């Protein structure tokens, strides 16, 4: 059943320079309930080379990293280290095989010292099996000096900047003598100077013959540092080769490259007058000067990279955070939204991206989750009416084709897809005017995606105004009437439907001409 994808091992295990790969992944598939996160992908990492792993959000990059670090075990495929098949049964096995990862937000311990962070789990011991602090600190110092850093190994990690934390993480990688270093968006929070410092270190690691897997969304950096590339799309490896010899247009085409026109049969809806108007919305730290108008029956897409401030903008529209300044009007009247309750009452709802964490109280029954924001309507004289709650829940359960033994069972017993339906039903039940969908199809399979898209179209046809945050280009292009592109907290352009092309959006979002 799992073998229906024919073998397509097109990745050579030997580099052009005839240096054998340190690590090779062959035909890796990773299946989650309802989703094939990785589908028969192969990738090779060579000593002294930086391989750029490129793909949209949800293309399967993080899953690959988790397999390489022993957190997931793939359903299919094999990993070869130095040509020998190796199983990464757990995180320790991956470390033993010489793999280490430096994450976007480094996974280190704030309250421990720099030296403890570097040597956690393999600290030098004294004769009495206690930790040899003097030796540990001096070794840590030596490692940091080799990275041209003068960080004091005895201070706590929380006192370091993000760039310094990266250095600590790299020192840790060196201390366990990792030969394969994964860098997952290491530059996301760094200044240009810090990036230059980091790249010098990466060059140093290359010179030591380490293989580096470098994940980033920023093309200028990738062209600066990477030798090879591999492009993932929808869990498949769609291209690889020498990065310097491949023009950026080609990479973008590989990233997005499918016919987006027909995949999303967006229903054309007569668009009415303005419903929600946002003027010069500013936030202390996350976004600045965002203005937008949302019209009746319109689907406004918001596109951008992770960290562009899209969710933060929408959360402030929903009252989770407060904007610093700016005006918000609904149906022509200026309104102030200070809490989610205000937003729900005004008719603005937000379906969060992390539907499990933000959307559902798992121990509570389905119907209670569904009616949680609507209790004002289902109650009589301050008392909850279970009959009304069941009626409301049943209505939306039927509409969304929710499959459950009974509406009184805990939401935690449902499958992921059905949990999603509960979340969406819960918000529709408030009868909103504006619904904000944050990555509505994240983590669900292609078939269900089509159903979700059809449903979104249906809502728009009923006159609901929709803001849809998405990182998936085909989705945003296929579904949106207009698209706001955000980059680093600023508006990077508003595109009309006729101007929506993948290239234009990626260019606006990444800021590369």
């Amino acid at each position, binding site marked *: 059943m*799992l073998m229906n994808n024919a073998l397509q091992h097109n990745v050579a295990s030997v580099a052009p320079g005839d240096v054998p790969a340190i690590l090779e992944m062959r035909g890796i598939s990773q*299946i*989650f*309930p*309802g989703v094939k996160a990785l589908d028969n992908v192969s990738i090779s990492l060579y000593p002294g080379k930086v391989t750029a792993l490129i793909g949209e959000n949800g293309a399967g990059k993080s899953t690959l990293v988790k397999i390489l670090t022993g957190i997931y*075990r*793939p*359903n*299919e495929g094999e990993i070869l280290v130095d040509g020998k098949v190796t*199983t990464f049964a757990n995180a320790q096995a991956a470390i033993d095989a010489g793999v280490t990862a430096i994450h976007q937000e480094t996974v280190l311990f704030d309250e421990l010292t720099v030296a403890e962070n570097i040597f956690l789990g393999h600290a030098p011991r004294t004769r009495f099996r206690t930790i040899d602090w003097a030796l540990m600190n001096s070794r840590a110092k030596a490692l940091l000096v080799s990275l041209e850093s003068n960080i004091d190994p005895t201070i706590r990690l929380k006192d370091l900047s993000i760039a310094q934390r990266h250095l600590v993480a790299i020192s840790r990688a060196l201390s366990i003598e990792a030969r394969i270093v994964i860098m997952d968006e290491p530059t996301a929070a760094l200044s240009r100077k810090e990036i230059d410092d980091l790249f010098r270190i990466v060059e140093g690691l290359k010179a030591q013959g380490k293989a580096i897997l470098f994940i980033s969304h920023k093309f200028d950096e990738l062209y600066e540092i990477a030798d090879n590339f591999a492009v993932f799309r929808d869990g498949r490896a769609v291209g690889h080769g020498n990065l310097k010899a491949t023009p950026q247009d080609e990479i973008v085409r590989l990233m997005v490259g499918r016919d987006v026109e027909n995949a999303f049969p967006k229903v054309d809806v007569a668009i009415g007058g303005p419903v929600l108007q946002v003027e010069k919305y500013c936030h202390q730290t996350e976004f600045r000067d965002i203005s937008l108008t949302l019209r009746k029956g319109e689907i406004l897409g918001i596109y951008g990279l992770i960290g562009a401030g899209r969710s933060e903008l929408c959360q402030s529209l*929903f009252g*989770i955070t407060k904007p610093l300044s700016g005006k918000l009007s609904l149906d022509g009247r200026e309104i102030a939204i200070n*809490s*989610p*309750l205000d*937003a*729900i*009452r005004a008719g603005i709802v*937000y379906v*969060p991206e992390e539907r499990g*964490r*933000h*959307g*559902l*109280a*798992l*121990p*509570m029954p389905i119907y*209670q989750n569904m009616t*949680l*924001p609507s*209790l*004002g309507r289902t*109650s009589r004289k*301050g*008392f*909850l009416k279970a009959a009304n709650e069941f009626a409301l829940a049943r209505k939306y359960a039927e509409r969304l084709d929710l499959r459950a033994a009974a509406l009184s069972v*805990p939401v*935690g*017993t449902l*499958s*992921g897809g059905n949990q999603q339906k509960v979340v969406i039903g*819960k918000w529709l039940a408030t009868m909103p005017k504006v619904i904000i969908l944050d990555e509505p199809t994240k983590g669900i399979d292609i078939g269900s995606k089509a159903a979700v898209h059809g449903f979104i179209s249906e809502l728009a046809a009923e006159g609901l105004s929709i803001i849809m945050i998405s990182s998936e280009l085909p989705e945003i292009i296929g579904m949106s009437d207009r698209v706001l592109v955000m980059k680093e907290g600023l508006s990077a352009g508003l595109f009309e439907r006729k101007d929506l092309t993948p290239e234009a959006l990626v260019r606006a979002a990444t800021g590369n001409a």
Partner: protein
Amino acid sequence: MPRLLRKRETLLFIIIAVMIAAFSTRADGFATPGNLSGIFNDTSILIILALAQMTVILTKSIDLSVAANLAFTGMAIAMLNATYPGLPLVVLILAAILIGACLGAINGFLVWALEIPPIVVTLGTLTIYRGMAFVLSGGEWVNAHQMTPTFLNVPRTVVMGMPILSWAAVIIVALIYVVLKYTQFGRSTYAAGGNPTAAVYAGIDVGWTKFLAFVLSGALAGLASYLWVSRYAVAYVDIANGFELDSVAACVIGGISIAGGVGSVLGTVLGALFLGVIKNALPVIGISPFTQMAISGTVIILAVVFNARRERNRGRIILRDKAAAEIPAEVAA
């Protein structure tokens, strides 16, 4: 009815019934209606405090100050009664509820507005409220002869076969059941504890919900203070010392998740009754108070283990599909 059997409450009820049956083989008359009704009466105050504690625990908090609240409020109304014997009992009871609610509000305010962890807040106020009881009384006792007969006798008065003390517990059980099941506040406590973030997204003010839970807990502790002082006919600084732990224990045994959001009124009541039966039975069959404490402690730990296992089972249902997907890979490997 296998579904009913799997429910925590049914299991607990059966365990209590088996315990009573076992004890009655060792001590004649243990299982008589009179004795059982006596046990219920003995456990009434614990039931009330456990329900107070449960409401707070549902919101992912804890109220360690319930017993200290009881001690201070009990002292205050005992002194009021001693000093102004003319005050009607209703006024004293309302005063007790009000004072208790105010002390609860202090806890709630610190948790809500200053966002201090509830365990720290109530550990602090536990000491403060006992200290206040000492300051108020100057360390003196208020004894039975200083209290009015009405003050002492009302909870003992038998109405329809049960003392008013027992009826008070029954009424509070009904009241909390209604509040938790049929009011928005009740639903909010479950949501705030079950998933605080989701509750915020659903427009629930989690901080305010916790505040109200603490106020309710304080008010119940206030009511319990009158019942306690009149039942034992004495008020001094150390009354109900350590009783907050019994209230937590009753909740845990009754299946209330310490992590919040899970639990039922029936479970808590059965948890309290379980402790009540043990407390009453062990002396009867000649087990020393110290062994009793060890037995109670063991039961609490067993209950926590049981709860933890249940939570894991729930997790497994969520991951069922994923686990199913992983099995073929393991078989293949």
